[in-house]
């Protein structure tokens, strides 16, 4: 399977491939300083060396370690030359689909998205099951885009219900797409299948237009990033993450409430923080709810990835290589009562890393909803 290749093949430049890569990622600006290698959280636990990966790409070779990348963008943030390393990884993965050299499990993921419109290969008719007792006004130009994970994963469904409950309390008119909703395509893009991602963006754009949607609120930061980037091409609606939407509502006094006095530490999901620059709204929501925030040493732009991005939710990771367990320890080390975050992948990862045994893991919306009144 995916192993580090110790290649003894003679070096051959593939100018065309390199130029295609450089055109979208600035890879040609790389001066091999190695800052990215040092920034990459995989450097301690795996043979992943980002600088070497870029060098190899220049020789027309693809390092099989690209599949370990979590697209956390720590490297992007540190590169002095402005190389889009995440873009480079996605591009190299895309090439691997042509030759079908992809890790086990990923074709099944894409089949699920392609045939059922979701990342789990579950029936589209069950997509609205998250709602349970939640009522939705079903009017207005605001759409709550739930996404695959919060639609099907019982843990993340709770987050979606909390967000819907808060929107209702604040009297926001909004609609959901229910069983008509399809995947945002982020998982397809991460694993390098840009064609499928583009298709889904088109489908979502058509659906948004048909429903008169002017504002999209997402549950997952992954949908937030994918739709924000993808829909801009269509001049589509404004896309926000739920933490931004809720911050406005709490700020304007439309929702108030305080939760039991406790201390909380907040984990910045990569796609909300580093990718989209949303650092403060979740923190303000926690504080406005009366919680005391204790920061981890690695916070905001320095947040440590949980390990769930870049399609890693569909690839097994050796327990010794999992960044999530490190992050759980860091959170527990703050002495906070709770670990809050705002991404369904992060929650799955932390809970499966026995997070709940060391520090209870929760979602920002769930915390706010637990004490909120309209």
């Amino acid at each position, binding site marked *: 399977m995916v192993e580090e290749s110790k290649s003894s093949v003679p070096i051959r430049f593939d100018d065309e491939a390199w130029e295609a890569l450089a055109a979208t990622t600035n890879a040609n600006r790389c001066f091999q300083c190695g800052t990215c290698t040092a920034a990459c959280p995989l450097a301690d636990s795996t043979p992943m060396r980002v600088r070497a990966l870029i060098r190899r790409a220049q020789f027309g070779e693809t390092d099989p370690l690209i599949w370990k990348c979590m697209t956390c963008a720590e490297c992007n943030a540190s590169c002095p030359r402005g190389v889009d390393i995440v873009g480079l990884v996605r591009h190299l993965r895309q090439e691997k689909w042509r030759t079908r050299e992809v890790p086990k499990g990923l074709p099944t993921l894409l089949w699920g998205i392609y045939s059922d419109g979701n990342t*789990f290969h579950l029936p589209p008719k069950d997509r609205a099951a998250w709602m349970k007792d939640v009522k939705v006004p079903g009017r207005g130009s605001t759409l709550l885009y739930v996404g695959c994970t919060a639609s099907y*994963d*019982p843990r993340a469904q709770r987050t979606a219900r909390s967000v819907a409950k808060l929107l209702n309390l604040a009297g926001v008119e909004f609609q959901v797409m229910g069983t008509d909703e399809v995947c945002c395509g982020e998982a397809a893009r991460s694993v390098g299948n840009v*064609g499928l991602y583009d298709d889904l963006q088109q489908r979502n754009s058509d659906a948004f237009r048909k429903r008169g949607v002017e504002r999209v609120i997402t549950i997952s930061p992954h949908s937030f990033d994918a739709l924000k980037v993808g829909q801009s091409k269509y001049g589509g609606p404004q896309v926000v993450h739920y933490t931004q939407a809720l911050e406005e509502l709490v700020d304007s006094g439309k929702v108030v409430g305080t939760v039991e006095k406790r201390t909380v530490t907040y984990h910045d999901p990569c796609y909300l923080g580093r990718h989209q620059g949303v650092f403060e709204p979740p923190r303000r929501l926690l504080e406005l709810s009366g919680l005391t925030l204790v920061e981890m040493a690695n916070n905001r732009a320095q947040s440590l990835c949980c390990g769930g991005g870049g399609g890693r939710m569909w690839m097994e990771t050796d327990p010794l290589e999992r960044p999530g367990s490190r992050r759980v320890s860091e959170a527990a080390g703050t002495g906070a009562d709770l670990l809050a975050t705002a991404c369904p992948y992060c929650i799955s990862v932390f809970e499966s890393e026995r997070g709940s045994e060391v520090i209870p893991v929760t979602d920002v919306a769930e915390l706010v909803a637990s004490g909120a009144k309209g």
Partner: protein
Amino acid sequence: MIDVREGGIWVYAERRGDSFLPVSLELMGKAREIADRLGVELTALTVGRDGGAGAQLRRYGPDHVLELAHPLLTTYDAKAYATAISAELRRSKPSTLLLGATRNGQDLAGRLAIRMRTGLTAHVTALELDDRQNLIGWVPGFGGGIEAGVSCPVRRPQMVTVKPGVFPLPESGTPTGDVTKVVPELSEKDVGSRRISFEPKGSTVDLTRAGVIVVGGRGTGGDFTRIERLAHLLGGEVGATRVATDAGWVERDRMIGQTGVITHPELALVFGASGAVQFTVGIEGANTVIAVNRDPAAPIFDHADLGIVGDLGPVVDSLLRALAA
């Protein structure tokens, strides 16, 4: 333009030991349907050390079974198999050759297509006939989320590899057709590789085929001896959640779920698993699910046909007692 009726339809029936892969039988069912529609004959082709096994194929409705038997064909070798089969294709000139898109099937199909200077549609998920009765193989492509219909109107045989599980497995019926054994002309130089020994790698559990799976999760607290005993008494296999495999309670190839194995048992008994979606996608295909969990709100109960709320220990014990009695 060539008429498909100019020759019969052949199915390459891939052997595993003395039986045949399910995909080959699935193809027999579909090929019979197409042959009847076109009014041509169906031949099942099988290759191996000696004949005999081919007689089983008579239960799947062929007009003929052709066995290519030779000691040099004992194990699959692309070069030797392609040499033997292409000689037969040249002699009998079938219009169509269908193969399963298995590892060996794909390998063989490519070589045969080159030798026959014909087209090959690979990894097909649906088959139909166009108005000139050429086969159209539908191939999904992810490049743009499209599905392409591919046909080969100018060369014969038209060749297709079909993904396993696409067509239903036909019922075995009364034997039909004749069996012919042919000893192809082959010499050592036609063989690309030689098998020295055959040792299956590591453990041989294959949960994808298990009829009964007894799953343990974190709730077992690591005690898998009774879970194993229960699986044994039910003639099934032990499965586990990722928490249980991470803890080293069970080997990793027994992990069920999104990054583990996707299973389709008749019965899954699930003890002490909460029902995280990354786990439940792996038992979605089970016919019956029985779950035991002490938390009545555990999402696993949404996936269970029968749920028992309570401590799993006494439940396992009473099942063991009942089965041992």
